[in-house]
């Protein structure tokens, strides 16, 4: 059975390699965009709160509700429901390009929430101390908020990446390929249990890898 398994691995090696690359590309691009958008949203969510640097109930509430709406949808539904939007942005709804837009729409709000809670952990007293020093609000965001929250931001990014790996498995539906797609098409539809098992193992390994890296980075950043 083991020999059988190894044999199948050799047979499908190029397929695995190809699908890992596709997953990597999808996750990589989507992560980069989501992290940038998520962080910006998180900062806005924090500083527009009552009594913070730029208190603005309207902006805060609108953003809060919008994020909740996006977060209510399971990825597969979000992906099909924003098809017109995806088409408008990248000109196609299929392939890796077509998958990245819904992946970002799914991950950015999630990251925004995770990063928001990391930013809220920053001691208000420290912000006050910098206000008393005559720091501008921009300086406070850059040098106090973002800097003090780095360990929490790194952990949030790790969790977001893992959820992105999970969501990318469903992007196969729009022909973006990836490990999840292989698992479904070969493992499930063509009934190749060896392919299914290999895909599962590869997914587990990549999640473990991402989490370990995230933990190491967060630990390095934390000075207490």
């Amino acid at each position, binding site marked *: 059975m083991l020999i059988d398994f190894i044999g199948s691995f050799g047979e499908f090696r190029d397929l695995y390699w190809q699908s890992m690359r596709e997953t990597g590309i999808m996750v990589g691009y989507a992560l980069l965009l989501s992290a940038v958008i998520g962080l910006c949203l998180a900062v806005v969510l924090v500083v527009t709160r009552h009594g913070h640097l730029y208190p603005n109930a309207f902006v805060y509430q609108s953003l809060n509700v919008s994020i909740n709406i996006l977060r209510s949808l399971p990825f597969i539904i979000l992906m099909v429901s924003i098809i017109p939007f995806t088409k408008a942005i990248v000109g196609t709804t299929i392939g890796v390009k077509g998958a990245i837009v819904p992946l970002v729409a799914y991950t950015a709000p999630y990251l925004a929430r995770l990063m928001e809670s990391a930013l809220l952990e920053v*001691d208000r*007293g*420290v912000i*006050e*101390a*910098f*206000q*008393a*020093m*005559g*720091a*501008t609000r921009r*300086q406070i965001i850059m*040098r*106090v908020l973002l*800097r*003090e929250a*780095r360990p929490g931001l790194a952990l949030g990014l790790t969790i977001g990446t893992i959820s992105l790996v999970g969501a990318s498995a469903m992007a196969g539906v729009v022909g973006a390929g990836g490990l999840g797609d292989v698992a479904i098409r070969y493992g499930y539809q063509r009934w190749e249990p060896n392919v299914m098992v290999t895909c599962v193992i590869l997914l587990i390994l990549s999640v473990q890898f991402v989490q370990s890296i995230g933990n190491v980075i967060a630990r390095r*950043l934390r*000075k*207490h």
Partner: protein
Amino acid sequence: MIQLENVTKVFHQGRQNVDAVKNVSLHVGKGEIFGIVGFSGAGKSTLIRCINFLERPTGGTVRIDGVDLAGLNDAELRRTRRKIGMIFQNFNLLSSNTVFENVAAPLRLANAPKRERVRKVRELLDMVGLKEKESVYPAQLSGGQKQRVAIARALASDPEILLCDEATSALDPQTTESILELLLEINRKYKITIVLITHEMHVIRKICDRVAVMENGEVVEQGDVLDVFSNPLQPVTRNFIRTVFDASLPDSLLKKLRELEQPGQLLRISYAGEHAAEPIWADLAGRFGLRPNILYGNIAQLKDTTFGTLVVRVTGEPEAIRAGMDYLAERELKIEVIELAD
């Protein structure tokens, strides 16, 4: 240096208005150490934040060096704040920065050149006694050391005023002493005006020149520390003074005194400064035929004078007692008759 006129701060909490500070007027002179004492919730934290506009007063004016802060735009206000250092109960250091970086923060905000930053930070760390700790993170420091870093940071922009928000309240008594010594040294060396708030009368006694007592958002009493200590007018002030030295007699003793037959009078005598040297008891006995019996005595060190309290029972004829009291009053001793109510 600092002039507060009728400063008021109202917070809106839902539909309720909370008057945190009511009509406070204070003047703090250059180079002075001014203490504001009050129990928690008295409004002192809000008041000290009105001085650098961390809280914008809802009424009244705040002037620093004659300039009304309400008339400044954001950039001008920031520039003024750089001249007002502040330290806090919880130190409020950046946990992700080293001691050096923390102290350098105000200099970086002002874009000081690197060489200047290094020189200034080293000098300040040396002054607060943490020269060896410059590359350590705050989590590895004790509370007292963290407050020293915070003090060095507050001084980095060469402020003329230092605001201390319960700066010693999170520290143990010994560390409190050393931080107070440091504040005193800073005040003398750099001629920095210090405004501090505290709930510990001990802090006022140790380093302040003048004191204001706050209760329910109002300043109920203010003056030179010695005057307030020797002649407290408000009940809350007396309560505070009792926390540093309690000149009330125990009940059992009062009961015994009430049962005494001989005519006499119970007196509380307080004195400041050098009067301790005069042989007043011998005079009371020799010149007036009185017999003083000292029941309680305390001498306290204020910032730069001593302040003593005695509770004495003098026995003798009522006439002689009155003459004796006049004699004591002439010596600038403060005499208070304690009535022995049943």
